[in-house]
């Protein structure tokens, strides 16, 4: 049988346990909870380009950069989006580089029926063939080396752009594209290219 004194001592020991250890336990639990909360990954749904309402367009780098960014602004306005500059960031930021801006890509047009030799040494007779000067390995072949082929030089414009669409809040790239397009002149090529890239970006 426990005496009244022993009971009192035991009670005092229990209260000491509560007094000393409970705050530690509380602290541990709190720290654990905070720790878990801090390390929990922030899952933000990726930005859906089709739901972007406001895009800030940063002037493009490279030759023809300002013309390219102007064309993109026109295209984006045409889709009903709001367009801002870099100082007023929207849902996303569009930036890019003009990688090619040439108005004088030369093509050779051979006049009349022209025998051509393909890279695989296959001969083919083509009516008024057009041959690219850069990269093409097609060569006209005559019955003798003295045959002079009548030719004229045609010029075609080409524009190339590499662009990125970045989520303003997370800075995550949501779309990237590297395209090129050809046209009779630079405005035509640029217009078609910006249209093509805007469609790809916002689909």
């Amino acid at each position: 049988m426990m005496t009244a004194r022993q009971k009192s001592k035991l009670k005092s020991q229990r209260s000491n346990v509560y007094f000393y250890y409970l705050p530690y336990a509380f602290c541990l639990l709190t720290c654990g909870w905070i720790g878990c909360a801090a390390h929990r990954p922030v899952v933000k749904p990726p930005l859906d380009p089709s739901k972007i309402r406001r895009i800030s367009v940063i002037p493009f780098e490279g030759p023809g950069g300002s013309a390219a960014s102007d064309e993109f602004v026109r295209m984006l306005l045409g889709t009903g989006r709001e367009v801002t500059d870099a100082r007023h960031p929207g849902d996303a930021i569009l930036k890019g580089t003009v990688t090619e801006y040439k108005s004088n890509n030369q093509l050779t047009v051979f006049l009349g029926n022209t025998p051509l030799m393909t890279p695989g040494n296959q001969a083919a007779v083509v009516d008024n063939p057009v041959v690219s000067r850069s990269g093409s390995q097609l060569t006209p072949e005559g019955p003798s080396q003295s045959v002079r082929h009548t030719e004229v030089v045609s010029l075609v414009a080409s524009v190339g752009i590499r662009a990125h669409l970045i989520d303003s809040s997370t800075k995550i790239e949501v779309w990237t594209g590297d395209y090129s397009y050809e046209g009779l002149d630079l405005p035509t090529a640029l217009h078609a290219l910006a249209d093509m890239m805007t469609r790809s970006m916002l689909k």
Partner: protein
Amino acid sequence: MLTAAKSEEREAKSEKITRFLVLSFSLFAFSFRLVCADGPASQHFQTGLAYERLGRYEEAYTELQLAFALDQDDAPMAVALGVVACRLSRWDVAQRAFERSVSVDSGSVASYYHLALIYEKNNQTDRALDAWHRFSSLNQDDVLKGIAQKHIQYLETRG
């Protein structure tokens, strides 16, 4: 004696006249052949090409227009005019010349290539697509084949 001498003289005269006539006819025939083989249209065409090689596109354009006006059934002439007209941004003339060239020669590869680009510029998507498809079926150049495929893909997306 006298009559014999006179008749000899007459014979000599008639021989001279005959020779003159034969020579004149030969010269006329030669000139006629030259004109037929290398007519005014061809001469303007060659002059136009010479100007084109020198980079004198306005003069080349004038000469090629004269050649095309004189002979509208020559596909290479029409193609040359179309190319020079494109260089001078005279798109309507270029379109007419290339369209004429494909009506004369349905296998004119360069004409389809340029027509496709002209139709694209004019937002005539269906005609551009048709021209790109025709170009692809005739073209032998790998670089241009890739370009044609890219344009076809874009135009089909644009609708």
